[in-house]
């Protein structure tokens, strides 16, 4: 009884053994896979010369609060750019999904890409789909153990490689990998690698389509962006039905038409290649990640029969009903405008990154001090922050405060190392005579060496005794 109850309450995963397929979409997807893997695995090793930081092209140095992407050096206050990037990513997703459906899921999502690699490994060791099904159903033996062990071993290797590559983005890769091997790396490096390896193994090796079906929020909310013009992978019911095997007198399309049969020969190939284990002929389903492999499968069969492609293909609800698929529609324009605006704003913001920050803060306690020669002294804390990866020398001067003497700790110029923050104390002295109370003036910070940049004018106030 208890056994039965468990069976009812918790559904066991039904394993899926996708069959391999050849075709244009398969080639396209392998191309994307190679590109994505190439970027992901090689990027941490790409070098980029820097004066003050490791020569790593893409480096996110969290303890140092410095983030580098090639020539761009970022600091925590640039976090707004991540906001911009996320807006662009979201709008791009909405824009593309509105036009062409779940393109991200089927072609670009790392869950899809890593699952594909894991399935490739599975096929390499265990063979094609029927062999894998046989192996899964076979009783335990040394051969089965060996094959499964080899599969899991290779999976673990890929998972570990994935996890350690992710870790390499956060520190200088060549040093970190040596430190990790020697057991000298920070705990966070091992924890990150372990976590990413484990999740990669579980998600791509064991969970697979369940991630898309049960866990992924994008999978669910992308349907909100669908309309009647959105491209979907669909089976042409009017052409395909009724299905029948190509029996003796059902070999040609004409024969089939005459007997009320459609083009679908019910071979099941489209179902066997599906990574989420659905039958596309049942219509649009939430499990479908639009990977288009069923299109390749069906086209292969159509080719072998000499019949035209497209029994399963990209279409839209409108096209299915005999209408035209509109690409330009209010939704596309809306998302497109926001997308372009976000790209323009982010691009402008990054292109106009300032070379340095300068702020002037008056020391307010005390506001002023009388000196032994009777002059009045005000003090100011000047905060300088070199934002770029080259040194910067500035001269600090005064404007609109006649007769005043400036003392920056006896320094003529201040040199900031790449990305250095420095506070200098500036003392301004002036005779007490003349206008009493407040006197507005300006600090002028002029870059004189290193990075070319505009002078900064910072308004401030000189206080005299009332």
């Amino acid at each position: 009884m208890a056994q039965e109850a468990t069976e009812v309450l918790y559904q066991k995963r039904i394993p899926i053994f996708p069959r391999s397929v050849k075709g244009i979409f398969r080639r396209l997807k392998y191309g994307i896979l190679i590109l994505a893997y190439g970027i992901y695995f090689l990027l941490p090793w790409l070098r980029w010369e820097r004066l003050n930081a490791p020569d790593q092209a893409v480096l996110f140095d969290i303890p140092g609060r410095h983030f580098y992407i090639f020539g761009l050096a970022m600091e925590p206050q640039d976090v707004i750019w991540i906001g911009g990037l996320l807006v662009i990513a979201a709008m791009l997703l909405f824009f593309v999904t509105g036009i062409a459906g779940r393109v991200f899921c089927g072609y670009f999502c790392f869950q899809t890409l890593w699952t594909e690699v894991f399935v490739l490994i599975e096929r390499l060791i265990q063979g094609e789909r029927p062999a894998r099904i046989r192996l899964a159903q076979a009783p335990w033996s040394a051969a089965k153990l060996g094959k499964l062990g080899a599969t899991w071993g290779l999976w673990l290797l890929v998972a570990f490689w994935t996890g350690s590559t992710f870790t390499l983005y956060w520190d200088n890769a060549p040093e970190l990998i040596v430190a990790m091997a020697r057991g000298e790396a920070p705990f966070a490096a091992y924890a990150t690698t372990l976590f990413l390896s484990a999740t990669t193994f579980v998600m791509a090796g064991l969970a697979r389509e369940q991630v898309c079906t049960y866990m992924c929020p994008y999978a669910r909310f992308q349907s909100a962006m669908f309309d009647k013009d959105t491209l979907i992978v669909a089976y042409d019911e009017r052409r395909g039905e009724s299905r029948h095997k190509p029996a003796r007198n059902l070999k040609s399309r004409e024969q089939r038409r005459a007997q009320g049969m459609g083009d679908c020969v019910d071979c099941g190939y489209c179902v066997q290649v599906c990574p989420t284990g659905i039958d596309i002929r049942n219509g649009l389903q939430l499990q479908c990640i639009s990977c288009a492999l069923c299109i390749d499968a069906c086209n292969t069969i159509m080719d072998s029969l000499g019949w035209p492609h497209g029994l399963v293909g990209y279409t839209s609800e409108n096209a299915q009903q005999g209408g035209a698929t509109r690409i330009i529609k209010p939704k596309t324009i809306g998302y497109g405008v926001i997308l372009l605006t976000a790209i323009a704003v982010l691009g402008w913001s990054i292109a106009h990154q300032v070379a340095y920050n300068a702020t002037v803060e008056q020391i307010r306690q005390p506001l002023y001090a009388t000196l032994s020669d009777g002059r009045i002294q005000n003090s100011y804390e000047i905060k300088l922050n070199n934002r770029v990866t080259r040194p910067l020398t500035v001269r600090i001067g005064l404007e609109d405060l006649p007769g005043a003497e400036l003392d920056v700790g006896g320094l003529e110029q201040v040199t900031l190392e790449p990305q250095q923050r420095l506070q200098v104390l500036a003392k301004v002295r002036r005779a007490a005579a003349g206008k009493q109370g407040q006197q507005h003036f300006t600090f002028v910070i002029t870059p004189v060496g290193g990075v070319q940049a505009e002078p900064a004018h910072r308004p401030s106030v000189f206080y005299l005794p009332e």
Partner: protein
Amino acid sequence: MMNEKTTKQQKSTAVQTTGHAWDGDLQEFNNPLPRWWLWSFYATVVFALIYWLLYPSWPWRDSWLHGLKTVTFTVGKEKVTTDWNTRAVLIQELEEGRSATVQREFMEKIAKVDFGEIQKNPEMLAFARSVGKGLFGTNCAACHGRGGQGVVGLYPNLTDDDWLWGGSMEKIQETLTNGRNGFMPAFGETLNPQQLDDVATYVLTLSAEAPQSEASDRGRELFQGYGGGCYACHGKDGKGQQSLGSANLTDRIWTIANVPEKQTLEDKKAAVKQVIANGVQNRRVMPAWKDRMSPNEIKLMAVYLHQLGGGQ
């Protein structure tokens, strides 16, 4: 290969019900949870059990279960190991955390170099200001004020360029280490009221607070001669001696008599006269800090104070 039997997963399953029926036709759908969800739930239970074992968790009698995890930190020079708790973790972080380490390294760097080198290094100066501010708040602000502005008549202003005991970094370091005791004898008994008036007038002329007059000439005689004997400490020219901590009377800074605040000559004179008559006793005592601050901290404070107003 195309005729291969499709497996279970490809058959669409009809919606199941739990089999219960109420009011004749009211039924409950059974949407089974996936098995992985169940395993995730068990994993969280295991996590909780391990957590209970390692960290403080349940109330237990008069106390609680302390957990197996410990934290080690130093008190003075002693290593202390306690059950894991956030306060101990904080102490440990303050001792061994990244910021603490960086601060310690910088402190050591400053300890090694001499004052001349520090003065040329904006980074060290900035570090001294940032750490010095905290030390000043803890140790000095009670008398000298939060910004070091002092109180006229009691505690010297540290933001000006006038130094009773010398304004070089070395001198400031010495002042901090050993303390100072400023003293001026009372002349109320030695000098008669007329003489007091004359000396006060003379002192005011030194910083151009009063015009020269016969009274000031008489005052100068007393100041520079044996009658008053002021020159012994303040010097013939009234410029003071930093080795004694005697004030420079020729500059515009008044540390005891609040002359700049007074409007009329009479009031100014009265203020100065009061100081001459009563002296400065038991109010210019700067404690020694060598027992309360480390030599490195004192060195750092010397740099901080030197920058504050106008070190020499």
